[in-house]
């Protein structure tokens, strides 16, 4: 057989498919594979346990072989089994028929819910299939089929392989296989008939029995009894009377009054159509003997209600329309829109009043105005009107995308402080609902979104809803524009933005949230400054606070008033913030000059007295100065700053410059310190600021006493190091009068500009984490009502997956889609659970025990491919299923009557197999969608004195086709 011995030249010729050499090559390749996979000889496994085809693990191994240039794949499918414990069985097994032949008769796994079709048809635990490698290829001609089959036969014979070997013929979708199994002196042929049109005799049991018997051609009379297993499958599609309870939310109700804006914070949930499309009831007679039951042309005993076994599976609607999923999907679509807000709204909203030009000068003039602008009570609707007017002015009569009611409701929801009497001040945490330490609350950290009670989060939900219900992209652009106007209004009028944690931007949140927090920081500082100037706080605060010097920045109130003035004109320290110099007004400039005699100066800007330290020069108590607070930063600013710092490189000069750029804060602190402690030295400053750089030692003085002697650390003593340099430059100026380290005006304008130029797409990307966050919370909440363990697990996975994806800037769309898809799946699963619960009325069930059974049954339907109905048609679940079918039948019955009379011939055909026609007009069940019949027996073939061997025939009849799959064994040695 060795292909190698063939002359080389042959390989290069265009070879005939039937050339002997190619054929032999093919056979030897098959043999090689069978040998490689160790499929030789008989290894008897354990008898198959009940249900093991479903509960066990199936694996497969594949290889590729070719016949000439036609490629086949050869695949070994097998049920993973524990190795049999008895060794050395081999000799004893000589006469035993192959495992697969024995399996033909096993009745423990008839009609497995999920299995390879060959497993279902023949009950095999292991087999090999040779099929065309390409999906479109097919072995069609009879001669080729025969050739392949003889190859298989030879390969099996040569190797002694006892695993059945199949060849797939015809188009793949037809699932037509022929095969063979060989054992010592025995052989089983696997044959198949696949028809579109069903000959009448195949539609009932008696006809099938006749075919079976004639195929066997058994020479014995009487024939040994044939064992019969039958399964009829009924499909229920009509759930109409159990109409789907989920209604799309009534949007008008949300806006109009009683439900109120609160609902804007909620996401919708649930399927809009029934997510369960079909119920398949399989009624099974697992073990009938010929003669007990009659099923023929004119009569049938096979009443599904009487079937001893019922099992059910459900077909899930492929992509049921679900509200939450739609919401997120639609929102995500905004991310891909290119239009700017202006383009969408058809005008240039932010330039029209020359705002951009006016803003800074306006802000500046306000600063110098003697009386600060009084804080008005906010009126959102007023603003809405002005904004609307502006819009209408530019677009003529055209309606603005959001009507007033909707807009007002949303704005009040976002800015609840606008409705309350007193404007919000100080604390910015508006809601007190969520336990802020809970794991749930802190989810924003994982999603890099924003806290669920924050303005940002609410804004995300509102935009989501607007996008879905109120004018889509236009609505989104409109609301965003209103939002930006509101931000500017608050900045200009010193009104803090609600729904944001105070303090510097929280870098764990999304950038937009940080930007809003940044704006709030600016408002807070501006407000403090304006109010500070109004009440004109006393210059010399000299309170003594006990406590740690290091906590200086955290001391309340006093530290908050600094001014934006500085008499320092030096450009030197401006590297990082090229602020426009703000001119000091006349009152302040008087302080210039006269700084030489430090010790004589009046101390200024003291925060509190240090607990222990005194000045080295004069023993006066050392005061912690009021210092400027460091500039709050959003992550993009930080990124920028660290980039600038990193760009300076790693050379000594680079490092020096870097230190210089960052020394503004040090210098400012030194100046504050000098102002608070007239007559101080660098040593004093260092003892407060960097205590480990002041080294104290006990030394013995001239008089022999132990005294503490202190000095600056070596690194502080290096001549002209930056600390010394800064110290020498620093003038005694209290923080209040220093140039602002943080220019709130400039930063606020930057934020406002940033907000104004965000396109809806940018906005959607900013807020998508919040929307995903909210969606996850929503499915979590809904799951907790149903308790579906698999869903719980998936939600956990979504969270960890999202936290990986969302933590990187600009996550890929594909990954975002994946997350959204997972959420949609969870929603559908929960919706399915609800649908099933409604259908089976688990809630209505009064008896506790029955209810539990029913719930178990329903959750089984969700998680298993097929669920057994305990008690079949007489059990609790069975009765419900029966009723479902009965009412569906009535429905079709009545609609059939109502419909125009169909020609009787047509009618008969449509009604399917004859037996249904025989039954009285209103049957409880529709004609079975599938009729499976399994016939088995053991008879000697081909001669009466041959060995008695397993014979099996499986048939299935559906509306579309009919299939007979026979396995007929014969004795090959004694006939």
């Amino acid at each position: 057989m060795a292909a190698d011995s063939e002359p080389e030249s042959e390989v290069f010729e265009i070879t005939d498919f039937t050339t002997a050499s190619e054929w032999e090559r093919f056979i030897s390749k098959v043999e090689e594979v069978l040998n490689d996979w160790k499929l030789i000889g008989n290894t008897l496994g354990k008898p198959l346990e009940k249900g093991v085809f479903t509960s066990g693990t199936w694996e497969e191994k594949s290889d590729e072989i070719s016949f000439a240039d036609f490629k086949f794949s050869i695949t070994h499918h097998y049920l993973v089994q524990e190795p049999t414990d008895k060794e050395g069985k081999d000799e004893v097994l000589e006469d035993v028929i192959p495992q697969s032949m024995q399996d033909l008769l096993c009745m423990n796994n008839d009609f497995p819910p999920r299995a390879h079709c060959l497993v279902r048809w023949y009950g095999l635990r292991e087999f090999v299939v040779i099929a065309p490698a390409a999906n479109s290829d097919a072995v069609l001609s009879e001669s080729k089929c025969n050739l392949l089959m003889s190859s298989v036969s030879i390969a099996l014979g040569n190797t002694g392989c006892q695993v059945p070997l199949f060849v797939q013929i015809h188009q793949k979708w037809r699932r037509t296989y022929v095969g063979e199994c060989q054992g010592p002196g025995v052989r089983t042929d696997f044959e198949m008939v696949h028809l579109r049109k069903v000959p009448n005799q195949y539609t009932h049991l008696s006809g099938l029995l006749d075919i079976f018997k004639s195929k066997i051609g058994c020479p014995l009379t009487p024939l040994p009894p044939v064992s019969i297993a039958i399964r009829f499958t009924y499909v229920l599609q009509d759930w109409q009377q159990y109409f789907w309870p989920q209604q799309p939310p009534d949007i008008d109700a949300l806006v109009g009054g009683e439900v109120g804006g609160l609902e804007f914070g909620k996401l919708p949930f649930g399927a809009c159509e029934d997510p369960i499309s079909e119920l398949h009831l399989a009624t099974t007679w697992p073990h009938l003997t010929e003669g007990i039951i009659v099923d023929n042309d004119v009569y049938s005993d096979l009443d599904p209600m009487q079937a001893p076994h019922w099992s059910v599976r459900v077909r899930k609607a492929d992509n049921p329309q679900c509200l939450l999923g739609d919401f997120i999907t639609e929102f995500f679509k905004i991310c891909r829109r290119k239009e700017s807000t202006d383009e969408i709204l058809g005008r240039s909203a932010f330039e029209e009043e020359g705002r951009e030009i006016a803003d800074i000068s306006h802000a500046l003039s306000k600063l110098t105005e003697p009386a600060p602008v009084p804080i008005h009570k906010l009126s959102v609707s007023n603003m809405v009107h002005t904004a609307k007017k502006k819009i209408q002015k530019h677009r003529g009569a055209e309606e603005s995308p959001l009507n007033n009611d909707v807009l007002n409701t949303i704005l009040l929801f976002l800015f609840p402080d606008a409705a309350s009497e007193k404007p919000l001040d100080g604390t910015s945490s508006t809601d007190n609902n969520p336990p802020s330490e809970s794991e749930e609350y802190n989810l924003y950290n994982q999603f890099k979104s924003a806290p669920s009670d924050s303005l940002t989060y609410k804004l995300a939900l509102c935009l989501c809803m607007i996008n879905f219900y109120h004018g889509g992209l236009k609505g989104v652009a409109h609301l965003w524009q209103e939002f930006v106007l509101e931000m500017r209004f608050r900045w200009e009028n010193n009104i803090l933005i609600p729904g944001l944690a105070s303090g510097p931007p929280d870098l764990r949140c999304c950038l937009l949230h940080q930007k809003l927090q940044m704006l709030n920081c600016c408002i807070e500082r501006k407000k403090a400054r304006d109010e500070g100037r109004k009440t004109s706080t006393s210059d010399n605060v000299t309170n003594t606070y006990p406590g740690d010097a290091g906590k200086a920045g955290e001391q309340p109130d006093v530290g908050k008033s600094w001014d934006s003035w500085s008499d320092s004109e030096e450009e030197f320290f401006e590297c990082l913030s090229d602020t426009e110099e703000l001119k000091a007004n006349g009152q302040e400039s008087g302080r210039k000059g006269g700084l030489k005699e430090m010790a004589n100066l009046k101390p200024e800007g003291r925060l509190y007295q240090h607990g222990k330290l005194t000045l080295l020069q004069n023993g006066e108590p050392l005061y912690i100065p009021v210092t400027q607070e460091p500039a709050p930063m959003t992550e993009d600013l930080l990124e920028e700053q660290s980039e600038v710092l990193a760009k300076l490189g790693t050379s000594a000069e680079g490092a020096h410059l870097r230190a210089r750029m960052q020394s503004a804060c040090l210098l400012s602190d030194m100046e504050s310190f000098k102002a608070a402690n007239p007559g101080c030295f660098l040593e004093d400053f260092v003892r407060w600021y960097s205590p480990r750089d002041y080294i104290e030692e006990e030394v013995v003085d001239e008089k022999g006493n132990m005294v503490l002697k202190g000095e600056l650390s070596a690194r502080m003593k290096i001549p002209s190091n930056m600390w010394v340099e800064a110290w020498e430059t620093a003038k005694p100026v209290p923080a209040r009068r220093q140039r602002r380290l943080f220019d709130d005006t400039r930063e606020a304008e930057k934020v406002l500009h940033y907000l104004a130029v965000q396109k809806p797409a940018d906005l959607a990307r900013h807020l998508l984490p919040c929307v995903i966050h909210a969606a996850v919370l929503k499915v979590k909440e809904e799951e907790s009502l149903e308790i579906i363990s698999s869903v719980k697990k998936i939600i956990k996975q979504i969270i960890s997956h999202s936290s990986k994806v969302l933590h990187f800037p600009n996550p890929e769309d594909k990954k975002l889609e994946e997350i959204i898809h997972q959420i949609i799946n969870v929603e559908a699963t929960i919706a399915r659970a609800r649908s099933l619960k409604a259908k089976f009325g688990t809630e209505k069930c009064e008896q506790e025990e029955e209810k539990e059974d029913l719930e178990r049954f329903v959750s089984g339907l969700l998680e298993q491919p097929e669920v057994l109905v305990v008690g079949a048609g007489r059990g609790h679940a069975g009765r419900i299923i029966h009723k479902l079918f009965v009412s569906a039948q009535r429905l079709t019955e009545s609609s059939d009557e109502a419909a125009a009379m169909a020609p009787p011939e047509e009618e008969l055909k449509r009604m399917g197999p004859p037996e249904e026609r025989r039954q009285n007009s209103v049957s409880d069940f529709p004609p079975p969608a599938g009729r499976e019949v399994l016939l088995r027996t053991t008879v000697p073939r081909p001669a009466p004195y041959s060995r008695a061997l397993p014979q099996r025939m499986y048939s299935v009849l559906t509306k579309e086709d009919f299939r007979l799959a026979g396995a007929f064994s014969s004795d090959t040695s004694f006939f």
Partner: protein
Amino acid sequence: MDEDVLTTLKILIIGESGVGKSSLLLRFTDDTFDPELAATIGVDFKVKTISVDGNKAKLAIWDTAGQERFRTLTPSYYRGAQGVILVYDVTRRDTFVKLDNWLNELETYCTRNDIVNMLVGNKIDKENREVDRKEGLKFARKHSMLFIEASAKTCDGVQCAFEELVEKIIQTPGLWESENQNKGVKLSHREEGHGGACGACYSEPSRRRIKGFD
């Protein structure tokens, strides 16, 4: 960027001022010790490419000042870091006691939770030790950190500290790959059970990844 560099890793060095953070970094990047090194202002920055188990990684190392007043600025630099080196001075107990504060800060400001932390006890060349090695080890174990003692002056443990940290980061795939996945770089195969990145700098046999202890 170099073709063969697997990834750029951001590493942060924190700890009280004066414990030798800048000196450790200088020793690692330039292999020198400068007793005249100025006290850091704000943050400083250095880069170095190292190779661990055949994988080249570019390290962008941010050195911080450590003084209370500068600290308000540094949390920002925690963002996006894959590794943090927390340093104390074995001759100053107060710097060891303050470690808890630093860890708190780390927890608060780190944007991710799978970041690799290493504890370094520095200045072991000095006579007047105040913190026993065992104490450092115990602290590190308690907080799932890598641990090593080192001296920026004598070079002890410095190389090792950085290499070990990088190796650990590379072994924590979620930590770096998502930013670099498009490059399609495969890590060279690493045997399980292979201990540290280096054996030369620090030969004590018990020194191993602390995380694996319990």
